[in-house]
């Protein structure tokens, strides 16, 4: 009797201790699971900043000169005269003339024919732009304009004779064919300051001795070839135009794409680091889930947060979850503050994560 009960008591005590020990251990291992589960959260970098970072216009400009040489090279190949260093102005016809005009202006007083050979060097820049613009108009009308280029080599004399008239005529003749020429006409019509340009050109036309002389000098060898192999010229122009357009377009988008991908990676890194700290807690499953909070964050270079994160905007706020707005904001703010020193690539700081907006989308429940 006594013995049986004592055995029972001993067995029960030992059993309880064992059971609770096992439960403690087992539940400890189970308690490690919860930290693994994160609420489905979408942290998105707002695109506006990406655009700002992609802004580096300086990067888009450098490619432009690179385009020009490529254009110039073929032109050199065909007509070595046009210019080795001048190609830079070539893409930008407008700016070049401006510096040019003063230079030609001094020569103007002494435009007289005697100087042609020595001074032609300064004037060259001015005339060169013309050859450059000419190819530009050509590419557009390539097929139809082929005849016109032919006349131009032939024109030199009539054009020289009547510099202004031919432009009007050409503008009238081929409105589509010569975008640059109409511009000349416009310039002639509108700007007094541009009159200087026109004079240049008119003088170029008037002092065509230099220009025609050069084309005549250089062209005689080449232009005949062009004229003879006008097909080649057309092909050459074709080659130019795609080069012009494609590199220009490709380089600009390329810069944007790089920064965009960098921003993508940055967004991923930020999301990865902030997400573990984003705990909805008791808000999970409430109407608050449909509120999307966008935080404006300014970072220091070491990844810490410079200002208290401010709420940039909300979306998905309904009368039903109006009461949760402050809490959900706090959750987002707390997430950022708790994970505060973010580890992000330092080279992307300026214009990258220096000043960003984070969008917190608490799950797909809402």
């Amino acid at each position: 009797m006594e013995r049986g009960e004592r055995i029972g008591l001993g067995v029960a005590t030992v059993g309880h201790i064992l059971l609770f020990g096992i439960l403690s251990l087992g539940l400890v291992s189970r308690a490690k699971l919860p930290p693994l589960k994160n609420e489905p959260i979408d942290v998105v970098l707002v695109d506006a900043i990406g655009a700002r970072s992609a802004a580096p216009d300086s990067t888009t400009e450098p490619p432009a000169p690179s385009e020009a040489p490529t254009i110039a090279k073929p032109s050199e190949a065909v007509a070595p005269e046009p210019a080795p260093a001048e190609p830079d102005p070539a893409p930008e016809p407008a700016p070049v003339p401006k510096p040019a005009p003063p230079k030609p202006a001094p020569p103007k007083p002494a435009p007289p024919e005697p100087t042609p050979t020595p001074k032609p060097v300064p004037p060259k820049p001015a005339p060169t732009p013309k050859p450059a613009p000419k190819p530009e108009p050509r590419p557009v009308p390539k097929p139809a304009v082929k005849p016109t280029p032919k006349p131009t080599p032939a024109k030199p004399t009539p054009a020289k004779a009547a510099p202004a008239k031919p432009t009007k005529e050409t503008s009238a003749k081929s409105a589509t064919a010569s975008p640059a020429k109409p511009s000349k006409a416009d310039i002639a019509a509108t700007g007094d300051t541009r009159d200087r340009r026109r004079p240049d050109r008119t003088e170029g036309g008037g002092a065509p001795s230099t220009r025609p002389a050069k084309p005549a000098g250089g062209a005689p060898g080449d232009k005949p070839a062009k004229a003879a192999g006008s097909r080649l010229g057309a092909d050459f122009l074709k080659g130019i135009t795609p080069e012009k357009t494609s590199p220009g377009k490709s380089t600009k988008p390329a810069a944007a794409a790089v920064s965009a991908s960098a921003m993508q990676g940055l967004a991923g890194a930020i999301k990865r680091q902030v997400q573990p700290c984003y705990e909805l807690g008791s808000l999970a499953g409430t109407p608050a889930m449909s509120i999307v909070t966008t935080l404006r964050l300014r970072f220091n270079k070491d990844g810490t947060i410079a200002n208290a994160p401010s709420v940039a905007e909300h979306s998905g706020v309904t009368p039903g979850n109006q009461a949760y707005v402050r809490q959900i904001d706090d959750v987002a703010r707390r997430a950022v503050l708790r994970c505060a020193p973010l580890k992000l690539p330092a080279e992307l700081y300026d214009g990258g994560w220096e000043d960003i907006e984070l969008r917190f989308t608490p799950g797909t429940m809402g």
Partner: protein
Amino acid sequence: MTNLPIAPTESLLSPITLFMQADLVVKTVMIGLLLASIWTWAIIIGHGLKLKRVRKASEAFEKDFWKADDIDSYYDGPGKADLPPARVFSAAVTEWRRSTAGATVDREGTRARLATAMSAAVGAEIDKLSDRLSVLATIGSVAPFVGLFGTVWGIMKSFTDIAAQQNTSLGVVAPGIAEALFATALGLFAAIPAVIAYNRLAHVIDRIEARLNRFADGFHGTLSRELEL
């Protein structure tokens, strides 16, 4: 805002952690329920073994008894055993000897006295066997309520915490509710085996009682026949 008491995720649900975090009242309830559980299992094990032993020994005793030829010699030998049927037997024999000691024997009176003595012995034996069952019955019925009391108290406390912290974050509420629910869990943990064991042991004791009564009736019949000789 930033210094919220975030619940430690590690081993939050460990029984020991829950117990250590609990309020004093809840702790008391938990300790009581744990002791009740231990007691329940002590009774289940000890009493279950005892009943099993008693049942087997009783069967063996009865088998031997009906094979025995001489009641008086059996009374002096195996009849002294510490078993319910043996005690019923010895009670009947004692009453028989007292009743038949005189010159004249009142048969009817003797029969009645024998029946009374044996039923009293059976009742005493059953009482002795089932005295612990009341404990099981009590634990089985009360433990859930005690656990519920602990839970209600714990939840009250966690709501007080919520009110004090002005925050409904799960981190504030969870530990209190977990420890509160742990009290109910302990109550059920003690009560469920107690109820099951109570029903099981009551059934075993009923069978022993029925068997004792059959034995008593049989022995009463034997003694009655002896009276008529």
